[in-house]
């Protein structure tokens, strides 16, 4: 049984920010698939739940006039899989969503919740870091736009002090090619033991831009800068793939826990880097 709490249902972002300001020990609710589990386990508590689901503007997927793809924070994993717009703009997000959680959970869990849940290897968050996604965030002092990488760098949002409501995820810039690789104990329905997302842009075979992200880096998904610089300017070949994977293993900072040790995770980041680049080599 969940512990009793007060339930509030704002209809606008401004209302939600104000409710958070006046209630201590409050938590936002989107799909509930991370928060309610944490509350059931006693890992999270809230005297007040502020439900974001009645804020309509968080439910839109649109291609903006500037050619950016804007995905509302309440878009569910299932809606990502079903969206033709997302499929054509960033197919890797569809593939990532298909590998996330269970079919039932995908009907509830949202993109905003995946980012804000504080899961060290959240699937979508890891892929979005490789895509250099930005987030629109409503705060006490108005709306700000920031790279997702900076948003995750701040604090764990699940225990946030300052009000930060993600209203949308924004993708822009060159589309490139991307691959997402996830290692699980089961074949499905599990959070990653290790995960790697890679985005590249090439010009006649040569890598002109690259971003490599891995989960479980000190409690969050983060970029692997050394491996990226090794690959930049190179041509993707079995040899450069091997060197990049080795550098990833040697330089990545992984956290061990009861599910996998730090050493195992480092090795697996290398393996997944190799798999992702091998897949990209086939795509190019």
């Amino acid at each position, binding site marked *: 049984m969940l512990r009793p*709490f007060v339930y509030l249902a704002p209809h606008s972002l401004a209302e939600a920010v104000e409710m958070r300001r006046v209630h201590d020990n409050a938590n936002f609710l989107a799909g509930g698939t991370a928060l309610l589990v944490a509350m059931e386990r006693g890992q999270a508590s809230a005297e007040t739940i502020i439900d974001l689901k009645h804020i309509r503007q968080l439910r839109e997927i649109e291609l903006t006039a500037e050619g950016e793809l804007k995905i509302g924070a309440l878009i569910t994993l299932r809606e990502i899989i079903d969206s033709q717009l997302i499929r054509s703009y960033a197919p890797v997000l569809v593939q990532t969503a298909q590998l996330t959680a*269970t*079919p*039932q959970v995908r009907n509830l869990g949202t993109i905003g919740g995946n980012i804000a849940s504080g899961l060290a290897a959240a699937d979508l968050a890891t892929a979005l870091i490789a895509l250099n996604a930005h987030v629109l965030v409503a705060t006490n002092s108005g709306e700000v736009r920031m790279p997702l990488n900076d948003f995750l760098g701040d604090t764990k949002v699940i225990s946030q002090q300052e009000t930060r409501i993600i209203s949308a995820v924004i993708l822009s810039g060159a589309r490139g090619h991307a691959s997402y690789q996830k290692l699980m104990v089961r074949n499905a329905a599990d959070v990653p033991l290790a995960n790697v997302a890679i985005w590249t842009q090439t010009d006649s075979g040569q890598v002109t831009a690259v971003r490599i992200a891995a989960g479980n880096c000190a409690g969050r998904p983060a970029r692997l800068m050394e491996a990226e610089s090794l690959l930049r300017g190179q041509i993707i070949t079995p040899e450069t793939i091997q060197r990049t994977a080795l550098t990833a293993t040697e330089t990545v900072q992984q956290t061990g826990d009861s599910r996998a040790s730090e050493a195992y995770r480092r090795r697996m980041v290398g393996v997944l880097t190799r798999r992702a680049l091998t897949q990209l080599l086939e795509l190019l």
Partner: protein
Amino acid sequence: MSNHPITLTVNKSPYSLSVAAHHTLLDVLRDDLGLTGTNEGCRMGDCGACTVHLNQLRVPSCLVLAVNADGADVQTIEGLAGETTGEHHPLQEAFINRGALQCGFCTPGMIMSAAAILDEIPERPLSEAAIREALAGNLCRCTGYAKIIEAILEVANG
């Protein structure tokens, strides 16, 4: 703590209820409406025993607050059975005929998921691999899944 008035339709019958904010749809179905066909396993979204259809989508009812079901159309295993003539749904018949259950604890959730899968995946013949993937959110500790898959294949492909 707060209480909230909600209306919802469960298995085609309308209800007006006052629900506690911290009660889930699963709690309300079982404790307030006496619909105990929907089972409570883990309460953490892992086992799928609590699967129901919420506005035509299958969800773990343990992770849906009852207040969030306000205005919704809910179908449970009890509604699947009585849908047309009060007779068993073809999936229920196939599960019985093939012995696709042992203790039966997972069965209501398994059948609600199977019913959703028949709609979610339009391709026929439906493949065993597709069913296995789509059943990833329903755990069964008894059968080893083989007969469950056979029963669904039979209904999907005839």
